[in-house]
């Protein structure tokens, strides 16, 4: 320990010589009272310098006005980036409500078609039942040249019945007692037609206590691409629990419109849960830089949302357990990554990953409900 301490001290402060006040003051020796031990003040600029400064400010302001005018005119006539990359948006969303029926069996091809209207492709494998009874699906989402792969465990089948514009829908489902790990996949779009893929889930014990209190729960969420059904292995011991949900379409008449998690508002957040950064210790590709100490249970579903600097959706990474998720940080120039964790459908934590000047992916974080702070970095 002593050797380490000495070595570290030598590294950071090889001489151990303190900086003196004189050294510091000498750095401002050009200031009028810089060496007399009093707080220095800079010389008042000359009348000529002040005139130049005012002229510069006026010129800059005029240039800014011209720039704003030019940009606004360009925006009126040129293609908007979001519009360009987003699917055609129906002018009347009501005409595009999702079907209230759910396809019981969907092929991977059909599932892949789900994402196409949005410029993304999603390839959900047909699923290979594991010996534990689970069906494993590979979700691959591709957009803008980036491919993000993740594996999530879904109970079969995944439904796919998605209109070009996803409307707000409600889930109504019956949930049996379940341990951890079951996940649902949902897709929502914001009011501008921008697609937001979302993994919904974390049907851990706590969530099921919430949902299963009455045996049937109505779960407001953005309209879903899928539903869950069939047997679910929640604890690795075989298909011992069932989980069924059904997309029932838009909110019943008279019911409030469920909020959409659009990145700025999270009306569902009811409890501040804090994430334990130590859980990211072995999180490949992610270097947890900052964050409040929190706790969350097993069975969390994680999703990495990828947006470009303008907030245009690029893709999502799906992971069942945050501990085992891999975030493909390398190979794309996405400066903002949002990572969300859902514990029981009403909570999320978000990290925003932003580029630093050296080109890495680092950044401060935010929690949309005003809770924890976090930051991640792709080394």
């Amino acid at each position, binding site marked *: 320990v002593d050797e380490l301490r000495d070595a570290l001290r030598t590294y*950071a402060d*090889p001489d151990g010589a303190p900086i003196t006040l004189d050294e*510091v003051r000498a750095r401002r020796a050009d200031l009028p009272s810089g060496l007399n031990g009093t707080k220095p003040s800079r010389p008042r600029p000359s009348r000529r310098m002040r005139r130049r400064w005012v002229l510069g400010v006026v010129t800059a302001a005029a240039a800014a006005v011209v720039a704003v005018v030019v940009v606004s005119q360009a925006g009126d006539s040129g293609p908007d980036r979001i519009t360009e990359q987003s699917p055609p948006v129906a002018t009347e969303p009501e005409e595009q409500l999702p079907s209230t029926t759910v396809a019981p069996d969907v092929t991977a091809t059909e599932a892949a078609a789900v994402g196409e209207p949005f410029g993304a492709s999603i390839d959900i494998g047909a699923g290979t039942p594991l010996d534990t009874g689970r069906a494993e699906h590979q979700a691959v989402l591709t957009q803008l040249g980036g491919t993000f792969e993740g594996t999530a465990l879904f109970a079969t089948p995944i439904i796919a019945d998605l209109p070009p514009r996803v409307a707000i829908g409600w889930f109504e489902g019956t949930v049996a007692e379940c341990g951890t790990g079951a996940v649902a996949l949902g897709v929502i779009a914001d009011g501008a037609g921008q697609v937001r893929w979302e993994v919904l889930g974390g049907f851990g014990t706590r969530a099921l206590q919430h949902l299963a209190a009455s045996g049937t729960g109505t779960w407001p969420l953005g309209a879903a691409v899928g539903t869950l059904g069939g047997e679910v292995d929640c604890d690795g011991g075989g298909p011992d629990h069932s989980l069924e949900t059904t997309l029932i379409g838009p909110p019943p008449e008279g019911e409030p419109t469920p909020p959409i998690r659009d990145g700025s508002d999270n009306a569902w957040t009811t409890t501040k849960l804090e994430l334990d950064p130590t859980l990211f210790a072995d999180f490949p590709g992610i270097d947890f830089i900052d964050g409040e100490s929190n706790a969350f249970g097993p069975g969390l579903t994680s999703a990495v949302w990828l947006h470009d600097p303008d907030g245009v959706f690029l893709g999502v990474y799906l992971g069942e357990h945050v501990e085992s998720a891999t975030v493909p940080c390398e190979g794309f120039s996405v400066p903002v990554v949002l990572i969300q964790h859902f514990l029981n459908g009403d909570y999320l934590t978000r990290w925003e990953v932003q580029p630093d000047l050296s080109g890495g992916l680092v950044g401060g974080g935010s929690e949309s409900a005003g809770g924890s702070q976090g930051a991640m970095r792709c080394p």
Partner: protein
Amino acid sequence: VQTFESFFRTAEPRLRRALGAAYGGAVGREAAIEALAWAWEHWDRVCGLDNPIGYLYRVGQSEAKRLRRRPRAGPVERPAAAHAPDVEPGLAAALAGLSEQQRVIVVLVHGFDWTHQEVAELLGISRSSVQTHVERGMRHLRSSLEVSAGG
């Protein structure tokens, strides 16, 4: 009202060591001097800050980055090797393998006995994050230097 001189006595060693941890002894020292000079120049403002040392640490970071962009006239200094030949030769490289923040935290906690709270205040992060960085940084160092946790 605190005088700059009394603040200096507290802040000087902390900034010198923290910036030295981040950027090496020479650059760190230069950055610390510049940060303190900035504080002297702007003392009216600095003395009213909640966390002046944390603020000046960032001033020093900017200065250090500016210094490192300058073309060097002489050979690149390797503090550990240059001044302490008896120090584990791989340490500087191992430390360089850490992220800047991890390096600062490891050095301050294990080299200068800062508490996690002190480091957290300097860097503006939570104590738990400091703990995480310490653990991960030390694990990385052990791995780089091929030593076990026990020793």
